[in-house]
């Protein structure tokens, strides 16, 4: 059994490896597969019974019924195949996500023909959770799929399967598609991470100050009259509705260097998780922080772009 399973897996891998990588695919005769389903085999058996009954009882009307049903099933086979053939599927590159969370991505289905395509189901290959949609004539539809990435890093989206049982359920029509799009998966931020390490007073551009313990990760205090506008943490204010000012300590341009050593952990992945949590905290606080990972170094900075750069570095470390 184990050999069989392995053989099947190898066959599956070989088959998938043959498929081209593309973010957008228009299904053709070559990429749509069709076999009779179990219901189709049942229908075949029914047709056989009808035929034998017509022969044995010499019912010409029975022949007519049998052949009309057989003809309709053949047409249904064509309709089923046509439901997928000619359909254009485009994967919309997903935003980055954190490890252990599901990556949500969308697939856009475009139908250029004059008739609707009914009951198209999509799922990740090998996962039987189908999302079903109709695509109107000369219209498009969008389905949402969730995928659990295996871990941090840059991952190609999983192989997708689209199928349909329309119109009679007697044929299984499907296609397999390997999207080229990749999703960036950041390490999972550590929950309840310890407070940020102490920053180093910035040599430049601001004047030198004595290093100060910034153990309070926030370094914040309620707004007092006279606080400079630029010292107000507007982000926080927008969230909570209360005005909060940076403490004078944080106000000084301290540079926070985040590195593996600072985490005090030995496991490499755990280090990354803590660093991820810290980077997010530091960004939240609007701190001036930099990241050192192995040989590479990201110079201290603030802002969303900087955060992205840091997270990306953590994801790919």
């Amino acid at each position, binding site marked *: 059994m184990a050999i069989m399973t392995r053989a099947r897996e190898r066959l599956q891998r070989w088959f998938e490896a043959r498929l081209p990588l593309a973010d957008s695919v228009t299904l053709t005769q070559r990429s749509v597969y069709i076999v009779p389903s179990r219901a189709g085999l049942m229908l075949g058996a029914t047709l056989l019974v*009808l035929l034998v009954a017509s*022969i044995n009882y010499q019912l010409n*009307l029975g022949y*007519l019924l049998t052949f*009309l*049903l057989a003809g309709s099933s053949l047409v249904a086979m064509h309709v089923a195949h046509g439901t997928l053939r000619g359909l254009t599927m485009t994967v919309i590159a997903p935003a980055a996500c954190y490890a252990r969370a599901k990556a949500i991505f969308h697939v856009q289905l475009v139908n250029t023909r004059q008739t609707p395509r009914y009951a198209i189901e999509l799922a990740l290959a090998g996962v039987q959770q189908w999302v079903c949609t*109709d695509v109107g004539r000369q219209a498009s539809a969008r389905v949402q799929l969730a995928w659990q990435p295996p871990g941090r890093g840059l991952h190609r989206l999983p192989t997708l399967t689209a199928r349909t049982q329309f119109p009679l359920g007697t044929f299984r029509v499907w296609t397999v598609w390997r999207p080229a799009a990749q999703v960036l998966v950041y390490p999972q931020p550590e929950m309840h991470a310890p407070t940020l390490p102490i920053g180093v007073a910035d040599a430049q551009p601001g004047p030198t100050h004595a290093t100060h313990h910034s153990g309070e990760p926030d370094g914040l205090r309620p707004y007092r009259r006279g606080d400079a506008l630029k010292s107000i943490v507007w982000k926080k204010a927008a969230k909570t509705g209360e005005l909060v000012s940076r403490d004078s300590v944080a106000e000084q341009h301290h540079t926070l260097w985040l590195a593996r050593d600072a985490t005090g952990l030995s496991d490499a992945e755990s280090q990354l998780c803590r660093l991820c949590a810290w980077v997010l905290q530091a960004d939240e606080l609007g701190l001036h922080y930099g990241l050192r990972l192995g040989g590479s170094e990201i110079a201290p900075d603030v802002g969303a772009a900087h955060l992205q750069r840091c997270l990306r570095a953590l994801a790919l470390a």
Partner: protein
Amino acid sequence: MIKNPLSHLPRDTRDTLFVLTVIAWVLAPLLGQLPLWCGVLSGLVIVWRGLLAWRGQPLPGTWWKLGLLAVAVIATLITYKTLLGRDAGVTLVAVLLTLKTLELRARRDAFVVFFLSFFLMLTNFFYSQSLLTAAAMLLALWGLLTALVNAHMPVGQPPLWHAARIAGGMTLLGAPIMVVLFVLFPRMAPLWGMPADAMAGRSGLSAQMTVGNIARLALDDSIAMRIAFDGTPPAQSALYFRGPVLGSFNGQRWTPTDGVALMRDEDAGLQVQGPAVRYQVTLEPNQQPWLLTLDATAQAPALPQGRARMSSELQWMQAANVTELLRYRAISYPQFSHGTGLTRAQLRPYLALPFGYNPRTEQLAQQIRASAPPGQDLGRYAIDQALQRLRSGGYVYTLEPGVYGRDSADEFWFDRKAGFCEHMASSFVILLRAAGVPARVVTGFQGGQVNAFDGFWTVRNSDAHAWAEVWLASQGWVRVDPTAAVSPGRTGSFNRLQAPRGIVAEALLGTVSPEMALNLRALWDAANNRWNQWVLNYTQVKQLNLLKDIGFDAPSWEDLVYLLCAIVVSASLAGAAWSAWERHRQDPWLRLLAQARHRLQRAGYMPGANSTPRELADLLERTSPAPMQASAQAAWRDWLLRLEALRYAGDTTHFRQQLATLQRVLRQLRRDA
């Protein structure tokens, strides 16, 4: 706008009710054939299931279903004494189908219901293959496919007519496949023996005659056969189609004459004269070997298979019973003589009467015999006397003469003086035999109705008739129809006694004028006849004839298979070619855009390989010096923007027309440039 009441229902309820309706439609025509309990049980289960769906209540438990199934099986056993055989099988399938609706949960259950329904549709054809049945079942097939398609449209609540349209389209496209298979699928004999009840329940002329038997036939308006005459048909009153000849009488029942052998054609002592009548008969299956022909047919009718043989009483038969529609050609001669040289010994069976029956008729016969003038043929005299008595004695032709007792001839001649052809023929023959004149009863059909639309004559089972044949020394067997003496209308015109109609028929036909009813019926018969000729009568012989027509020298059923394979192969090749073509086919809009791009390139612009219409329009403005005049440029720009609008802002309902318009304008632009 009429609001669809179904649209308010939840999808599940609506779909279930629709499937139940279709199942009821499939079952309805069978109700007459199924035992009463089966019809009642099926009806109740369907109504129950419908109510459960309507109220959204849970389905009954397994015990309910098993209990009902056990009841049904036991009832079937009691009704038929078996579970095998055709009728018991149909009953069981009907019950199983309705019980299966009680567990319409999983997908597989739904499929079982559909496939049982397909089978039940076929069982309808056991009992009737008429045009009406076919139409009803076509509708049922459409309904079932609609339900099946609808079950595979799981998104939202699409209206049922969407599924109906798709199912109808599939059926229409499937029809050519059906025609090819129907025409070419080799017809073969039954693969194995069928249960004995397979051919039960159909009546026709009977091999024997007891009083009252033909009265039942006379009420049966179904068609017995159709005749197509070459040239002018004989007068309606001369249309006597010969069936079984009954020469033996046991006091109650007439049966075929003992020891009548099938003879070679020339041994029957038949001489024909005068003009021949040529015609083609399409005989409905009657489960008998008789070939009904006009009196008298000298040569064997041309059968599609086998050879017809004639009895010494001029009745034509084939070896096997007629179990499917049979078509044959025959040549008849209304003027003929038959049996002139028979000896006294050969005539003895036609004089035999059982002892102790009909004493008063015997007495009457003796009087006739005694009063016969010497020198005159006794037979001729007796016929005249009997017919004279029938004409003037107050005898009445009626379809409801009441039940006759033991001495049926006595009762007819002296007491009741009323009856139909059977009473008259029987009493007439008994009287003549008692007088010492050889006579026999001939049964068959008399008359028929010509269809004004296609010229076919229709002979119904209600045209069944019985008449007498009397042997005269000078002429041989002579036909005498005592019924014609009493009621000349019975033979030779449309004014026959009408059997009492049912209430529904009364309501339907009572409102239209008789001529219109007659015309409608003629039209309906013509359609039915075509149906019989082309569909029900399509046999292996016809298949092979068709092959001969399209150029096979000595067609066999293998040729049918080859032809079928050839069609399948060529259809597959055509399909492959089409799909190859389709792969290279471009979207018409894109093709139009490519043409425009190409045209602009030739005019001197430098469009990109994937420029959109708007990019092309911008290119027209940007390029300087402009390769074309300002007006042409404006026209091009306008065209390009319309092309863009068609794709991205157009209303899709008139896509094709608008595309065609744009194509036309593009041609115009090219000419101008």
